[in-house]
């Protein structure tokens, strides 16, 4: 009888601890790790805006909050709030891909030069004049 009570108390205690760990994990989840996210589409900066500008902008709705790999020419590097952003350019003169990078990307970014061809992976948040991606990582640098 006493043994059964101990078993019940132990099971309830384990369930409570697991529940608390689960709740803590939910409230402290820091979001998508771009490295782990499945790439939904691989595209160049030029192709991206060509499609977007040809009345196909709604076709990108399906990629919002999804991981994209985008290749383009490095136009500008900015730094704010301990985060770098890479601005990539294609054939369009007034449209860029803005990629706010993950903090751990700093050493890679510091080795990049304006004009480099780079491929980044990031989470698409949407479009204003430019395409906006957050949590980006550099996955390939092609010096030409």
């Amino acid at each position, binding site marked *: 009888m006493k043994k059964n009570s101990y078993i019940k108390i132990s099971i309830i205690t384990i369930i409570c601890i697991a529940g608390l760990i689960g709740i803590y994990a*939910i*409230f*402290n*989840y*820091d*979001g998508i790790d771009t490295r782990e996210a499945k790439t939904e589409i691989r595209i160049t900066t030029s192709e991206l805006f060509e499609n977007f*500008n040809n009345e196909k902008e709604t076709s990108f709705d399906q990629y*919002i*909050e999804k991981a994209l790999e985008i290749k383009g020419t490095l136009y500008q590097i*900015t730094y*704010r*709030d301990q*985060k770098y*952003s890479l*601005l990539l350019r294609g054939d*369009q*003169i*007034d*449209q*860029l891909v*803005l990629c*706010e990078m993950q903090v751990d990307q700093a050493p890679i970014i510091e080795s990049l030069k304006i004009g480099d061809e780079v491929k980044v992976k990031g989470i698409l*948040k*949407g*479009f*204003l*004049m*430019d395409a*906006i991606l*957050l949590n980006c990582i550099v996955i390939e640098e092609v010096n030409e």
Partner: protein
Amino acid sequence: MNKLLLLFFAIYGIGFVNAQDQYITRQGEITFFSYTSVENIQATNNQVLSILYPSSKKVGVQILMRAFTFEKSLMYEHFNESYIESDLYPKATFEGDIVDFDPNQKGPQTRIINGEFTLRGITKPVEVKVTIINTDGVYSINGTLEVSIKDYEIKVPPILSPNIAKNIQVSFKFQYVPNDNQK
């Protein structure tokens, strides 16, 4: 020419469609704060688009709601899915006239911008006090405003009501460059 840029021109008329008179920031910063006794929430968006037209004293702003970053992912989900409904209303916009703005005055000048702020498809007139700084012909605009969640019909479930302030404090910082630099 980008469609959004054309939209700005359409809104403001053709009188100031002069590339040399356009100043742009693609990475303006907006931070909002919700202070309550239960919880403080802060989010920042560093990808805000704004175009300034000094000679016509007009400014336009576009904000992608999903580009706000929060301390916790759960806050981000609540913000986009429950409060803002970003799938339906992905952008917020502001269009305004800067009262008594002197584009040639060097250094800081404190001015009022009268405009309209659209959030969740609801447009309300707003008056914003800003500091505009002209440093050798390059402009920056900083300021703050208060946004009432009631005005924009942001529905907070009763259980979370104590966690969300009725009035959200918003601060912004835009540093513009001449738009022809982008070409």
